[in-house]
């Protein structure tokens, strides 16, 4: 067998790929300039290109909420949006919610109330809870459960997660 048809490099063997796009995005207060393929999600940008692995990939289909981040202040599923669409945006991840060494009150409350077991959903739960508090729409315990239903905890730590969110919400109202 002749090996004349064997490409010399993987690059030459690869099919044509669309050009990368330039993305300027602020993550936890730091501006980044990235060159990304158009199909890279915000989640993959964070984890694979910026090594910010606090944001978790659970289902990758917007069903579990593990990838929740705050995009321009609002909680979203980072797996279901393209990084190239957010040129000029600002993202806050779990790595950016603390104030230096001082944990965000919701982070501290998760520890105080033992609101996690394996911890895989926790960063998404915390970002979602912060989003819920900012939105200011939860008035009753049922509202909290409904508005946190986009974050699944397969260890079943819901009882304590609920307590955390309820307490954080009350504290934010008192302030």
């Amino acid at each position, binding site marked *: 067998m002749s090996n004349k048809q064997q490409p010399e490099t993987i690059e030459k063997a690869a099919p044509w790929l*669309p050009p990368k796009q330039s993305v300027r995005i602020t993550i936890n207060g730091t501006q980044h300039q990235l060159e990304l393929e*158009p*199909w890279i999600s915000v989640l993959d940008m964070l984890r694979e290109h910026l090594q910010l692995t606090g944001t978790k990939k659970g289902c990758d289909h*917007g069903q579990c909420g593990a990838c929740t981040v705050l995009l321009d202040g609002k909680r979203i599923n980072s797996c279901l949006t393209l990084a190239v669409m957010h040129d000029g945006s600002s993202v806050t991840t779990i790595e950016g919610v603390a104030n230096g060494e001082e944990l965000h009150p919701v982070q501290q409350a998760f520890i105080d109330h033992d609101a996690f077991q394996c911890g895989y959903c926790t960063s998404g739960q915390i970002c979602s809870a912060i*989003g819920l508090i900012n*939105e200011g729409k939860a008035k009753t315990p049922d509202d909290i459960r409904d508005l946190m239903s*986009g974050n699944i905890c397969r260890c079943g730590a819901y009882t304590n997660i609920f307590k955390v969110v309820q307490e954080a919400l009350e504290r934010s109202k008192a302030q």
Partner: protein
Amino acid sequence: MRSFTYTRAGDVAEAVNEVAGNEEARFIAGGTNLLDLMKIDVMHPRHIVDITRLALSTVEDTPEGGLRLGALVTNADTAYHEQVETRYPLLSHAILAGATAQLRNKATDGGNLLQRTRCYYFYDKATPCNKREPGSGCAAITGFNRIHAILGESEHCIATHPSDMCVALAALGAVVHVTGPNGERGIPFAEFHRLPGDTPEQDTNLNQDEIITSIELPAQGFADHYAYVKVRDRASYAFALVSVAAGLLLEDGVVKEARIALGGVAHKPWRKPEAEALLHGQPATAENFRKVAEAYLEGAKGYGHNTFKIELAKRAIVRALQQATENKA
């Protein structure tokens, strides 16, 4: 996900131009449904046109006394908009009955209308599906069809439309404004979505090169007597088995006008004006509501797992009309 090219449109004309004549091009806004389907290769556009920078993000009054929702307003911003909450609470409640806070923060009003079905077989490329692959057959008709249609279905497709928002828009009689290469047109909501017939691959009557620019709500919002009843397998974050959007105009306990739309039962939000008309001039009683419910489900057909939906839909209609009668704002 398969590779694709990406471009960001600066205005509506540019967006339309980008997709005109290119069957492989798709708009993206919230992306919550499109990207999900692209990840499992059910949809595989070769060219993506980002429309999120278009100036379609405002909610404004219309000269006719209604409200115009820009296509890019998010579902969350719509549901919590002060004008929607006070004048169209039915719409607000319906939106908040669907999805999660994270999805509603991203999903847009135009995109909500264009959601694809959640039929399990549409999602499963290992099975036949006429909507995904025309001519391949329908696995749902003889398969697990608990969530499937009981009205308006065809031998080619028994999928349902998954939206809650659209059920309220159907009841309210909204108009969908679109722009294409030949200009603008308004599509009455009842004509926007299609029944499957023998072309289930077409969900709507929107042309491939048309873009939704806004959704217009008429002046009458049924804000005094409305209800959105959603019956589902869990209390939050589940699609409707059956849902009912109801709006009533009442005078001394007599129905002047009734609007009813059903979700979870057909390929489109289900309206039957001649059945609604049975209530006009009649007292708002449980007995009359049941008569309307019977008329609404006339001709309904079950496929085994979903046969329970026929009686469930009737009871949901009665309950929605009772709640609408009682909730005097």
